[in-house]
């Protein structure tokens, strides 16, 4: 009973010949881009040691839940968000959302979504039809397939693809005895389950464009990469037009479109979603259960407000403010409602809507001192220096911990006496625990002024809080008295800024970086290299980097 992988592969690859072998003449490729090829590696900064012509792999990914719902909204005008029914698309090996391969349960739910979306579309089919069926139903169906198909598949259809969709239309009319509109609905139902819709692979069956050792992405592929990165959705009319005109070939052309896309409200949702996924503050429900006796106020409404606060804060800084790293980590304002006011000790804040509120700058500084982050990384009944330190170490500094040793006894409970810090410090002197915890706990101790849901405190278990410590940043060891000083140090650190840029690269590529991405990482980091750099500049730099516009050929890929 060994894995039948080999047979599996044969099955998948062997059923038909390569499409490209017969289809090449049928597909009209977009006009060749003029100029830049290998000489347009993006813009790695001076001093970058990475190969400017290299680019990492582009593994096949399918639409995440967010992308699916956004796409059907923009494609069909359907706001029902059916993908919320899909299985969770978190990937435990990766910080950001990444949908798993399609198992039976996924295929069943994708089918249900397609059926309900198509049924809803049929009710107002006129809005989607490019023609009047009264003038010829067959012709109108054909025109629908090519026009709507381009938007659904995010690139022009091959003649084979059109023929298969017309065959589906015909089986709707002839076998299922459907009327015109319902048969179009059947076609939509099929398209929404087709790989060209579900997967990020907007290359039609033409040979890949090899340039040296890498493959240059086509204009339609770039259009979708841009829109999914910056909007989490399909390209708009203008992006499709640029792709059709072959105007997404150079870094400058991509930059122009990226800046345009950043002016759209959909980009705001992307920035908020990035922070939500990166800090995992949308997981309060699953990952941050609290003891109701210790935190009776920690209910669904408060959890939702915590996540919404962080979204509103980063949205404000990035799009309505200066977008700077130091501001994200140092601002002494946030967006509170009454429930959050309770956590912040600000009873004067009332109402359920979030509103901008100035905070005590000796107690709060940026997103790391917001309750969402502090509750997520807190324990059920108090603070948790290990979880908090680990988050700073891995998420903010991109450092990697050695694997944990075996059989570490847990830190003592509060009833054993002593502050949280005392008990965890004792735990860390345990020989086998020392390896990891001396790296992360000092960073976590900085947040000892905040309890398990982020309330500010000066006393812990009857003792004065000691939140002081030291951290090595940019090669220099610095001391801090508390979280406010630590976040200030992080806000001024080039190392932390570079890590943040790396996180955006991972988000944009939906994978970890590899050696082939070295120059691309430098390009991204250069977009965020000074105190005055804005997150928006960083996002543009990511969109223009080499690994965003080129890819390595996949092993086993047809040449």
């Amino acid at each position, binding site marked *: 009973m060994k894995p039948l992988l080999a047979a599996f592969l044969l099955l998948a690859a062997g*059923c038909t010949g390569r499409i490209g072998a017969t289809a090449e003449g049928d597909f009209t490729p977009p006009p060749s881009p003029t100029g830049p090829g290998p000489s347009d590696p993006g813009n790695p900064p001076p001093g970058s040691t990475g190969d400017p012509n290299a680019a990492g792999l582009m593994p096949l990914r399918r639409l995440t839940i967010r992308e699916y719902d956004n796409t059907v909204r923009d494609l069909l005008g359907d706001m029902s968000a059916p993908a919320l029914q899909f299985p969770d698309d978190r990937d435990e090996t990766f910080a950001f959302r990444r949908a798993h391969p399609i198992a039976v349960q996924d295929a069943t739910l994708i089918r249900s979504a397609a059926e309900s979306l198509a049924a809803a579309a049929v009710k107002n089919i006129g809005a989607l039809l490019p023609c009047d069926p009264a003038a010829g139903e067959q012709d109108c169906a054909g025109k629908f397939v090519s026009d709507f198909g381009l938007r659904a598949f995010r690139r022009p259809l091959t003649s084979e693809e059109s023929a298969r969709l017309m065959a589906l239309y015909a089986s709707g009319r002839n076998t299922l005895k459907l009327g015109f509109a319902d048969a179009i609905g059947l076609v939509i139902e099929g398209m929404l389950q087709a790989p060209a819709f579900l997967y990020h692979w907007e290359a039609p069956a033409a040979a890949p464009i090899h340039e040296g050792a890498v493959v240059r992405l086509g204009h339609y592929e770039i259009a979708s990469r841009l829109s999914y990165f910056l909007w989490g959705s399909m390209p708009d009319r203008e992006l499709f037009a640029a792709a059709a005109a072959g105007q997404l070939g150079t870094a400058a052309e991509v930059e122009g479109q990226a800046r345009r896309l950043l002016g759209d409200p959909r980009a705001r949702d992307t920035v908020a979603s990035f922070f939500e996924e990166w800090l995992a503050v949308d997981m309060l429900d699953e990952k941050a259960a609290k003891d109701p006796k210790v935190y009776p106020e920690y209910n669904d409404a408060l959890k939702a407000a915590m996540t919404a606060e962080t979204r509103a804060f980063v949205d404000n800084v990035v799009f309505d403010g200066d977008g700077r790293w130091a501001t994200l980590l140092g601002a002494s304002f946030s967006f509170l409602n009454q429930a959050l006011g309770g956590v912040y000790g600000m009873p004067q804040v009332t109402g359920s809507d979030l509103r901008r509120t100035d905070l005590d700058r000796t107690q709060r500084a940026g997103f790391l001192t917001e309750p969402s982050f502090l509750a997520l990384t807190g324990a059920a009944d108090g603070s948790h220096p290990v979880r908090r330190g680990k988050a700073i170490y891995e998420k903010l500094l991109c450092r990697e911990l050695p694997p944990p040793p075996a059989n570490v006894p*847990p830190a003592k409970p509060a009833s054993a006496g002593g502050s949280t810090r005392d008990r965890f410090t004792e735990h860390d002197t345990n020989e086998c625990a020392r390896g990891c915890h001396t790296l992360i706990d000092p960073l976590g101790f900085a947040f000892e002024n905040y309890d398990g849901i982020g309330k500010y405190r000066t006393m812990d278990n009857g003792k004065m809080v000691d939140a002081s410590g030291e951290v090595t940043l940019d090669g220099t060891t610095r001391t801090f008295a508390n979280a406010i000083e630590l976040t200030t140090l992080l806000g001024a650190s080039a190392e932390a800024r570079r890590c943040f840029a790396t996180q955006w690269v991972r988000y944009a590529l939906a994978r970890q970086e590899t050696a082939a991405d070295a120059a691309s990482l430098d390009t991204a980091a250069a977009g965020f290299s000074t105190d005055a750099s804005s997150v928006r500049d960083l996002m543009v730099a990511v969109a223009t980097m080499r690994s965003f516009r080129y890819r390595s*050929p996949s092993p086993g890929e047809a040449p």
Partner: protein
Amino acid sequence: MIIRTGENRFSRRALLRRLGASAALLPLLHAERARAATATGFPKRLITIAWSNGVAQPNFYPPADDPTQSDILSPLAPWKSKVLLPCGLDIQVMLDDKRTYDGHFSFPSLFTGTYKNIGGQNGAATGPSLDQVVSDAVAKQVNLPVPLLNALVTGRPTSAGVGGQKNTGETDPVRLYNTLFASRTMPSPQLDQLRLRRQSVLDYVNQELTSFSATLGTDDRIKVAAHLDSIRKLELELTATASPAACTATSPGPAPDYQTRMKVFSDLVAMAVRCDVSRAVSLVWADDGGSGPATMPFLGFNDAANGLGEVHAIAHQGAAAYVQKTSIDKWYMTQLAYLAKALDDSMEAGGTILDHTVIVMGNDMSEGSFHSVNAIPFVLVGGAGGALRTGRTVKLGKWNTTGQYWKAGNTGIPHNRLLASLAQAMDVPGDGFGDPRYTGSLTELK
């Protein structure tokens, strides 16, 4: 009766050919279909259950042959003649990869007997799980409406497909009910039209996936092959008929909390088995990461100040919180007893449904303060129609009775052998399961 052999898979064209393209014939065809009886006259069923955080080991293992004679296992006492307790099984495939203490990451290995590290402590399966293998074997004999019932009360799936890819589990009881029993409520002509429509679309999707895959690299083709495999399974499900077995199915009510979810999913599984909608079931009762269920307030643990708020924290305390851990472990055995009873209350030819079933419940680790993947607690209920000799405690390998064995080292018996024995008990031949390094089965269980 639909007997499926080899590559003779169902297609829309085949259906239409058989029908003479006349939908009017469909109900007739349905009426002609009957259950396929197995050689032994009754269908066998497999139910795998995963739970987590280890057990309070000293309170788990019985001193003698009665497999329910321990505090934790006592809720199973009324069924003690149908319980089989294999003691001393290691997840050898993880031990050999030096993943001794990665108990929180063992679900991919628990019912597949395979392991591959995919970064950090994360592991993945490289082959199919027992439930998948059994459901595929059953599907060659009979076309059931839901060949593999895969449900998660909480946590991540243990079920894995042919290449080891995770089989996403159902998390919504109402949706699961509709999947299992919808065909019983829809009028036949409407159901036939829906099936034809879905068949047209699946046929189209099948073609698209096949041509899409052709241009991709090896790794990406594997992902598309998994997708294609899922589409083919949906095609097969379309051709299954509702069972004529006399059974009642009632829609589950709301399940707002963990306790209710546990009950509702057990009820659905029992219904599905009773109605012969499914013969292979994968259930996950608790998350292997330790976070679900996070708390069990219904057991009265509210002493957060002593680290007794979170279920995972209780497990972490080891011996210091065995009192609390034991009541958690015992509660899970009460749940197992509930499911066993539901199956034992239903008679069919030759015995109760439970007699023709094997439930195998496995934990992700040995003990909560230790996190090791040796000495894994497994509990079997039901003898798969006499294939397993139940009513016994079976001490395997270097197992001893001190109740401290999980600290003493490995037993040397890979749990692959249990999986192989269970596959054999389900009439799937083979002399090993999962990673080919671990051959053999447990003749002691027969």
